């Protein structure tokens, strides 16, 4: 393992290829080059110093000390270069993943439009094509919202626009938006809310995005006909929200990565090919920004419960 790691580090050509950078812009290559330059400087200075100073041991010590300092600085420079390259690579990957995800709904829209204009259709067929158009336009819109949120988060320009809101109303509005999908998948949904919950000062658009992502997951990763239960109650100085499903669950080995950008659990890929791996990342970022906590409990093939708390004041 370690030997392979060292070998990989030394294989400069492969490292540079990973970032898609030419040799002269590649941090690893520059590091080695700087090392060689430093060594030459050391030898030259040693040659000069040995003629000037009587005590050669002192010269050796000075040179050793200087070279150690230089190597440390060099390493820091390389490391920051490496980070920059990694960020650039991640951005390219983000763009490529996103465009890929946008393609599917757009292809659906394109084909439906073509079918609508070219074929002789019954009214029922037309309705169906319009349904496809609506659904895929919404999918594109949701995806774009998610991309915008993620890019605002990574740019650091993500801001909350707070106002007094009722969480219960927001949950109900979100559920309403999912009615067609719920109906199509034969699921039951219960929403249990405590009476007399106080309003909170928060961002309604962001919270809706949180609810939408959580509910979307609960529906999509359902097994057969399942139940989804939502609960909203007061918990001390916080408002507590919970959503449980009886779906496919998250395998234990995947649980620690579930809030990471682009991560999708292995079994998620088996059941649904549509997800982007952005939803839960967004949920976590928004709730953390609102000074709340979010977590989950899950068992594979049994179901998952996501919950979060938000401070009332």
């Amino acid at each position, binding site marked *: 393992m370690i030997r392979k790691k060292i070998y990989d580090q030394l294989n400069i050509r492969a490292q540079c290829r990973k970032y898609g950078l030419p040799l002269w812009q590649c941090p690893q290559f520059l590091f080695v080059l700087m090392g060689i330059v430093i060594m030459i400087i050391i030898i030259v200075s040693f040659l000069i110093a040995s003629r000037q100073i009587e005590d050669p041991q002192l010269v050796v010590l000075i040179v050793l000390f200087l070279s150690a300092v230089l190597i440390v600085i060099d390493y820091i420079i390389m490391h920051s270069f490496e980070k920059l390259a990694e960020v650039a690579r991640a951005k390219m990957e983000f763009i490529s993943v996103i465009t890929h995800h946008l393609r*599917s709904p757009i*292809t*659906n829209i394109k*084909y439906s439009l*073509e*079918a609508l204009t070219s074929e002789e259709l019954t009214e029922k067929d037309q309705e169906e094509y319009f349904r496809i158009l609506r659904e895929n336009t919404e999918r594109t819109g949701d995806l774009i919202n998610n991309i915008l949120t993620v890019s605002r988060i990574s740019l650091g320009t993500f801001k909350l626009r707070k106002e007094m809101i009722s969480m219960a109303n927001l949950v109900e509005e979100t559920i309403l938006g999912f009615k067609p999908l719920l109906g199509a998948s034969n699921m039951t949904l219960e929403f249990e809310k405590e009476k007399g919950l106080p309003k909170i000062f928060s961002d309604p658009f962001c919270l809706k995005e949180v609810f939408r992502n959580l509910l979307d997951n609960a529906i999509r990763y359902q097994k057969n006909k399942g139940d989804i239960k939502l609960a909203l109650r007061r918990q001390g100085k916080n408002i507590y929200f919970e959503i449980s499903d009886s779906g496919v669950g998250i395998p234990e080995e995947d649980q620690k990565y579930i809030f990471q950008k682009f991560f999708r659990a292995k079994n998620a890929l088996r059941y*649904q090919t549509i997800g982007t791996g952005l939803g839960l990342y967004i949920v976590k970022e928004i709730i953390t920004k609102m000074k709340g906590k979010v977590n989950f409990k899950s068992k594979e093939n049994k179901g998952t419960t996501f919950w979060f708390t938000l401070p009332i004041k």
Partner: protein
Amino acid sequence: MKNILFIEDESALQRTIGDILKSKDYRVIKALDGESGLRSAKEERPDLILLDLILPRMDGFKVLKGLKTNEETKNIPVIILTNLEETEDIQKALELGATTYLVKSSYTLEEVVKKIEKALEE
């Protein structure tokens, strides 16, 4: 009447492409994931298979490999219909024995149908 097996998890595409094929007098057999697609291919022995690559349960490459390594299904022409367009993916699919490789977003419905008709004639 010729049979076409359409392995695709997007129900919208099943609908649009499926409908236009039906209107041209083909019988379309639907499969919404890789596993059931491979099973249908063995049971129904269609004249042509339309195969997506990103599929639940079993991806399109595995399905293609399964089709081409089975005596009963290896001679059925397979058209890949996907949104993956990396050269590596295209090469891999063609090496595994796909007849044609189509990137969905670069073709119109009419063009896709023409490619299917051409593959059935050959």
